[in-house]
């Protein structure tokens, strides 16, 4: 169903967007892990597709990609995982979070068809900025998949307007400059920047990068429509001391704690 992401954001509640790496440390464990995130209260799941050269990611997500590839995770596995979760949680949103080479190499049409078939609602392509969108956006449009664009603190206002044109799902506002990873302090300009985006379009704004706990999530959600948590979940995925059941339980609790912080 097209427009599901937009619909998820339309009930006035603050949304929790959670990221985890598919295949980390194995595809089976990541399925259990993501299931727990969704059960705990994640509204939109960003499924990280492992790539050999994740140039925009910090050490945590890099390590998770490497683990996923080392365990033999393929695109086919990722689509199968997405399909299982989207069938089990039809009311939730699913975004594939990928680098462009994986999509380009498979063929944009084939990738989009497979993503759609797997129940994905949107695609976030880290290394496709506004300048390079023309090749992939029409294909995603054709398959009813939302392209989720990134806007950063250094994106000029006019450029942000251009980026939002033709976008249907939501926009991902990157709170910090730099690569992914958890931080402890929020920048002062967060409110103004998100305000600018809200002014530029009616699209929901999910803000993330570095959000590490429920307290921070709540503060971000004061201005944004949703908050994205990535590295905080992936750190649990990478914890070698925990059994897969314990990791899943921890992820579920983190999601639930954030959920209740956002709902307060």
């Amino acid at each position: 169903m097209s427009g599901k992401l937009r619909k998820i954001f339309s009930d006035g509640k603050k949304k929790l967007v959670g990221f985890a790496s598919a295949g980390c440390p194995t595809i089976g464990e990541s399925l259990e892990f993501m299931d727990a995130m969704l059960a705990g209260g994640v509204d939109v799941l960003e499924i990280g597709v492992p790539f050999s050269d994740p140039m925009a990611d910090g050490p945590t997500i890099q390590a998770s990609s490497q683990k996923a590839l080392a365990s033999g995770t393929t695109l086919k596995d990722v689509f199968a995982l997405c399909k299982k979760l989207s069938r089990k949680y039809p009311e939730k949103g699913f975004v594939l979070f990928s680098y462009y080479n994986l999509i380009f190499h498979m063929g944009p049409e084939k990738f989009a068809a497979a993503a759609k078939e797997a129940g994905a609602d949107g695609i976030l392509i880290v290394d496709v900025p506004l300048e390079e969108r023309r090749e992939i956006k029409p294909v995603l449009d054709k398959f009813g998949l939302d392209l989720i664009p990134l806007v950063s603190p250094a994106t000029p206002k006019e450029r942000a307007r251009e980026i939002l044109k033709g976008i249907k799902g939501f926009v991902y506002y990157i709170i910090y400059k730099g690569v992914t990873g958890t931080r402890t302090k929020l920048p002062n300009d967060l409110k103004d920047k998100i305000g600018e985006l809200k002014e530029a379009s009616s699209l929901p704004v999910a803000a993330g990068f570095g959000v590490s706990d429920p307290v921070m999530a709540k503060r971000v959600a004061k201005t944004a429509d949703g908050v994205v948590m990535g590295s905080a979940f992936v750190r649990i995925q990478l914890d070698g001391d925990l059994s897969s059941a314990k990791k899943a339980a921890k992820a579920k609790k983190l999601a639930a704690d954030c959920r209740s912080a956002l709902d307060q």
Partner: protein
Amino acid sequence: MSKTHFGPYGGQFVAETLMPALHELEKAYAEAKSDPAFKAELKSLLRDYVGRTSPLYFAKRLTEKIGGANIYLKREDLNHTGAHKINNTIGQALLAKRMDKKRLIAETGAGMHGVATATVAALLGFECEVFMGELDIKRQAPNVQRMHALGAKVRSVSSGTGTLKDAMNEALRDWVATFQDTFYVIGTVAGPHPYPAMVRDFQSVIGKEARAQFKKLSGKLPDQVIACVGGGSNAMGIFHAFLKDKDVALYGVEAGGRGLKTKAHAASINGGEVGVLHGCKTYLLQTGDGQILDAYSVSAGLDYPGVGPEHSYLHDIGRVKYTAINDKEALAAFHSLCLYEGIIPALESAHALAQAIINAKRLGKGKNIIVCLSGRGDKDMDNIVNYEAKMKEKKQ
């Protein structure tokens, strides 16, 4: 052709977080390019510091031994720091100065570009940090020492496979958080726009000189120009001036490693597929699932799984013929140049020489070939000795 692409290749495939840095660089470079003061400063440093013009040398004894076309060498090995890399790092460092940046960062594989960047950082008073894969740090210890001596920090990169491509990822990660005061000096004609065009422009001095030198010498143009291609900066540098000379055949020589039929090579055009890496669309070595593969060559400087996007374009339109020379052929050419000319070439350049030796025989006497001798080979001696000892062991 769009400003940011070469046919379908090139582009700016980076995260939104990096776009402001690229826009700033594009603008600054466009201004610098047409500023006579910038050009004059570059020219004077290339002359007085690098030692340009580099000679175009007729390799008479090698030519006689081969018994075919005349082989000329464009002696980039005689530049300060021993390779063509400095043509580019001086250009980018001057641009960084213009942009009021305080710190230079660079990626390096074999260490030559790292050394060339550390050199200009010392020359012009920048802080300098070079990203290098942990595996390469072990393999290229002398260059690490040179960088340290020049005052640069060498940051060990352990992510991925700990080689050049990972060093480039890490440099990009650093840059995205630091571009306000940091300039990223990319070492080859790859990366996001404007790097491929900018690095080519800075290296194009090689071809401009070679073309004029040969014309002065013989009153005509050479029949062939041959250069090795890893990322492809010395090749773009020497080809660029000849692109419009349709009668001059251009050869880009990739590293065939242990052979194109094995997985152990670095021939992105001859043995790869089109993809997107480090900000540009180009030919890449990759798996069926689109994961980037590690390149292999006896020559560490050719050991990159991609190639500059302009090369991909020149390949597609048929203007440049891309071939592959394997480890053994390159080593044979290395020894020939040592023995017949008293010149120790870099292993990278030896790939171009090997192709020249093949082509000289085919072309026959009276024809002329220019080879870009991109660097000197002192840095490769340990590597060559070890490699040949291993080969000998295998045979016994």
